[in-house]
């Protein structure tokens, strides 16, 4: 049986810069995959290519055996791919609840029908449950732009989940959080695992990634340099060197 998500020989070129260089790996049904690597390794670019934000320069993304490499972004979303952003991108002038409601794909698939919904009151129950689960129920009417950092990150997760996705890509969801907040976040992520086929988690916090991931993919300079169980991969000399090298370069 083939994997749920197969990434094959993916390349992404930005003018002179090669951000993804022959990236290949699989993600299996039910898996929580950690994606790590030093700054500039190409982790975010990979998510952007898989979610249709950037077009691949070469290579293929297979989703359940279908080539989805050149599908437009909204089509990928409708096939169950959802994501968050490293630099938080909420709809700042919309309320917290609206940010979740707008992601309901039952309506975005037929936007003009919503004009004739009659006098029916909107059902916000599902969205409110999601907000509850990420701990934002009390903030439902606040403008998203007024949220604190950790709250905004959790709202991005709730919004991503509102479309009932099968695959969730989280780009550094714990960035900027303190230890307590990232513990809470880990609990939130764990609580959603059973409802999703695949979670791909980009994270610099090694403790968090070790705790959550079934398997790790390590990237450096656009290449995959290691794949495997967290304990093995984190002990791999090449991985240690990639991180140490990056740290030395940072000063």
């Amino acid at each position: 049986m083939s994997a749920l998500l197969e990434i094959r020989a993916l390349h992404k070129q930005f003018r002179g810069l090669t951000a993804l260089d022959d990236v290949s790996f699989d993600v299996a049904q039910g898996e929580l995959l950690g994606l790590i690597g030093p700054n500039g390794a190409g982790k975010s670019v990979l998510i952007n290519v898989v979610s249709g934000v950037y077009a691949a320069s070469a290579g293929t993304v297979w989703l359940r055996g279908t080539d989805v490499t050149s599908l437009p972004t909204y089509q990928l979303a409708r096939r169950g791919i959802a994501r968050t952003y490293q630099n938080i991108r909420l709809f700042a002038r919309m309320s917290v609840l609206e940010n979740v409601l707008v992601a309901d794909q039952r309506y975005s698939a037929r936007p003009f029908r919503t004009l004739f919904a009659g006098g029916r009151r909107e059902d916000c129950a599902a969205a409110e449950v999601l907000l509850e689960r990420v701990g934002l129920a009390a903030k439902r009417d606040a403008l998203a732009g007024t949220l604190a950092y950790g709250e905004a990150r959790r709202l991005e997760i709730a919004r991503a989940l509102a479309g009932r996705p099968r695959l969730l890509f989280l780009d550094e969801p714990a960035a900027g959080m303190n230890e307590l907040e990232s513990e809470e976040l880990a609990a939130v992520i764990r609580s959603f695992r059973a409802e999703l086929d695949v979670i791909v988690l980009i994270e610099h916090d090694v403790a968090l990634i070790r705790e959550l991931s079934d398997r790790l993919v390590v990237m450096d300079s656009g290449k995959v340099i290691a794949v495997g169980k967290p304990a093995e991969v984190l002990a791999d000399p090449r991985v240690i060197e990639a991180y140490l090298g990056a740290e030395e370069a940072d000063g």
Partner: protein
Amino acid sequence: MIQDYVMQTGINILLAWSVYIILLSGSLSFANGGFMAIGAYVSAVLTVKFGIPLILAAALAGAAAFLFGIVVAYPALRTRGLYLILVTVGITASIKVMIESIDYVGGIQGFTGMSGASPWHVVTLVLVVGAALWLISHSRLQRMLDAVREDELVAASLGINVVHLKVACFGAGAFIAAVAGSFYAHYLLFVRPEDFGILPSVFIVLYVVLGGMNNLWGPPVGATIMTLVPEFTRGLAQWRPTVFGILIVLLLLVRPDGLLPFRVPTERRLRNRPNNP
């Protein structure tokens, strides 16, 4: 006299809404003077040369502009921001040049023979378009458009077909501007290409900027003020553009989002809708 006020104000409200509906999806259009020209000339030819009744002619002219709007929207909406503004300015400019070169409609001399538009037509149309916009503002469509306006890319990654919505808004704006143009032509009885140049397009956008673009009431307020104030200060006639320029700059310093800047969250509107059994 009062008829003239109603007519001019009504037409300008429709034009302001035609820009507003395109703005709903985040695009600023200076093409609406051009769409208005299409409406004016197509409907005029239909009534004068083919004897088609005005209302039907206006609807057909609106449909023609809608199709034209959609066809140009696909390439035009590949650009954003400043570039899109320049493209829409180009659309207006080329429509004008095109009409000037068609002898069948009188070229730069203009076209005449139309009649029959009354303020009632325009008032009815304002009510119909206003009701449609109200319906949008109380729907999930409005929320999707808000999302597109705030961040197209994120909207797309949530499953919203951004191109579809933007093109539809562009077409709808073209339709409204063209129908308004139809009644304008049949009220003035005589139109020239220069009635529809860049300047009218800029004025229409200014109505919206003045009134505010975050709710459907801003554009008609802006259009009404900008139509009626100069009428009551006739002495200033030749200073009109200057006075407006200064007014707009002052206003934007004080109220950068226009006179009526508020936005009601769609969720609250939908929640407060009466519950039909």
